[in-house]
């Protein structure tokens, strides 16, 4: 670290420097986890493919009317992964599908972790009746079969990406809430919180200025892990026909493949790529999440 310039010695500048230092320390430790680096590299690759999809394949890849090939062609030089039942280029569809799968996975995870963090922090902060009731609700959600609840929600609402995100987000938050609450309780038992209260800090001040920064690392790790399960959940809902029928996603491609009879015809080239894409992305997020977790909490020792 270079020596701080003289002008930057206010409390904010100090805090910023401290944060930059701890980020550097975090990265130095993260780098020692080989599986985490592999996961990160895979994610970078998929993110690049998804972001550049409009340039490489273009949005008309999903058009049914002017499809370039004949229906259900096997892989060839022109169509490396073959074509679907409308004659669309499957490679292009898998690339285009990355956009929806990643977007829905990320947004659903963010929604889920946000709900979990708010419930966890408030339940840990306001103990007593409010906290107790909130944790009972959390425990109830925790044992619920999540997918059944998400399916029920998605069935009664209109078929859209918003529905899918909502259905995943409102059913998967309880794990995060439990973790965040435990961390909140640990933070609030420290003396400096008592000092903040004695100096007149209100509920909002304590929760947003002291508790939140302390639970943020946990929230980050949890989000990374949650993206993986959200992507799987999105694929599952799409496969069950509950996704948005107007967009291409990996789960939707698998449903199309099944409906087109690719299974009984043995058209493995139709089924394999979307599934591998789902598994690789989900695995990559899991590896990153586990690496983040073990950096933050070395006792877990999950480096394997």
């Amino acid at each position, binding site marked *: 670290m270079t020596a701080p310039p003289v002008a930057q010695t206010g409390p904010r500048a100090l805090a910023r420097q401290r944060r930059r230092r701890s980020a550097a320390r975090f990265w130095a430790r993260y780098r020692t986890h080989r599986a985490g680096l592999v996961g990160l590299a895979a994610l970078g690759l998929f993110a690049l493919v998804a972001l550049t999809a409009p340039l490489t394949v273009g949005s008309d890849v999903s058009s049914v009317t002017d499809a370039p090939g004949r229906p259900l062609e096997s892989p060839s030089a022109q169509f490396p992964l073959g074509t679907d039942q409308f004659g669309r280029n499957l490679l292009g569809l898998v690339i285009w599908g990355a956009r929806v799968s990643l977007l829905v996975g990320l947004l659903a995870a963010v929604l889920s972790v946000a709900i979990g963090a708010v419930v966890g922090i408030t339940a840990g902060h306001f103990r007593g009746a409010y906290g107790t009731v909130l944790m009972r609700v959390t425990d109830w959600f925790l044992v*619920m079969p999540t997918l059944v609840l998400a399916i029920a929600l998605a069935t009664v609402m209109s078929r859209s990406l918003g529905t899918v995100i909502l259905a995943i987000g409102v059913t998967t938050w309880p794990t995060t809430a439990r973790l965040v609450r435990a961390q909140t309780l640990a933070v609030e038992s420290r003396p400096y919180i008592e000092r903040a209260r004695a100096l007149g800090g209100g509920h909002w001040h304590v929760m947003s200025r002291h508790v939140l920064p302390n639970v943020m690392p946990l929230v980050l790790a949890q989000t990374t892990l949650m993206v993986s399960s959200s992507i*799987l959940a999105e694929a599952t809902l799409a*496969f069950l026909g509950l996704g948005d029928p107007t967009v291409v996603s990996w789960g939707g491609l698998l449903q199309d493949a099944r409906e087109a009879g690719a299974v009984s015809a043995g058209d493995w080239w139709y089924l394999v790529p979307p599934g591998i894409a789902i598994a690789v992305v989900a695995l990559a997020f899991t590896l990153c999440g586990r690496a983040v977790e073990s950096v933050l909490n070395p006792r877990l020792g999950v480096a394997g």
Partner: protein
Amino acid sequence: MASDVTSAPVEETAGPGAGTRSGYVRYVGGKLGGAVVSLLAVLVTGFFLFRLIPGDPVKTMTGGRPISTAQLAEYRREFGLDLPLWEQFTDYCGKALTGDLGTSYQFRAPVIDKISEALPNTLLLTGTAFVLYTALGMFLGTRSAWRHGSLSDRLNTGLALTLYSVPSFWLGLLLIIVFSVGVGPIPGLFPTGGMESGGKEGFAYVLDVAHHLVLPVVTLVAVEYGQTLLVTRSALLDEMGSDYLTTARAKGLRDDLVRRRHAVPNALLPTVTLVFVNLGRTVAGVILVETVFSWPGLGGLFYQALSVPDLPLVQGLFLFFAAAVIVMNTLADLVYPLLDPRVGR
């Protein structure tokens, strides 16, 4: 009912001088009370989920197909939608508590009948898979933890994590292509779906069902054993630094005995807890696997119901799945004190 459940275990777990009878009864009472509250919450959720969210359930069910006003009114009366909301609610609760879950829209049969028809098939599939994946996960998890850091540990954990990331329905479809349809030199060894070929009796029938059972069970075990493996592994790793293991070794016990008699029993409780907490996830796996393999169970029924959508059937199955998971979790809670006397005191 509570007293029947409690009397037996108390005699066994309460050792000399341990006056925990009232403690255990209070523990059981608390758990049963919690379960009842949870079940009521499921009942309420089931009602509001399917009545309030989409403007008109009948329109959702008929899926925009043209339907005459008379028919619409007929359906509305049949599902009790013409009554005031609170009356619908009390009506629904009363019926649900007596086992009447309404009439399926597509099968024109009571929902409860459809459920009890499909339940044994699901129990057969899930039970077989549950026993296998729990045993496999515990076995591999124990071995992994005992030699943690070794090549076999890394391979096992890696494979478990990978399979955990694989969508179960996709794995099922691939298995069908490879082992039912056949790829290249591999002939189709197993049926593509269903539970029986028909026209068989006695022992031949049992063999036939077992033959149909192989691929769905393999799929379920593959996607579910990883979780058990990872939890067993980390629970055992937590125990491995303990002093009592050093003592056991110092006594001159063989490594194998230290593991089986001392370490594993102590690591078992977190694993058992997780196995039951994860039943919800297993339900998801079962729904998908039954859908892919056309297994005539609850999961397959759920898929048929939601593709219509047949709301009374979806609602009934939602209530059934949720209630089943809560009941299983409560049973697990009642068994813990037998496994670990520290719980429930």
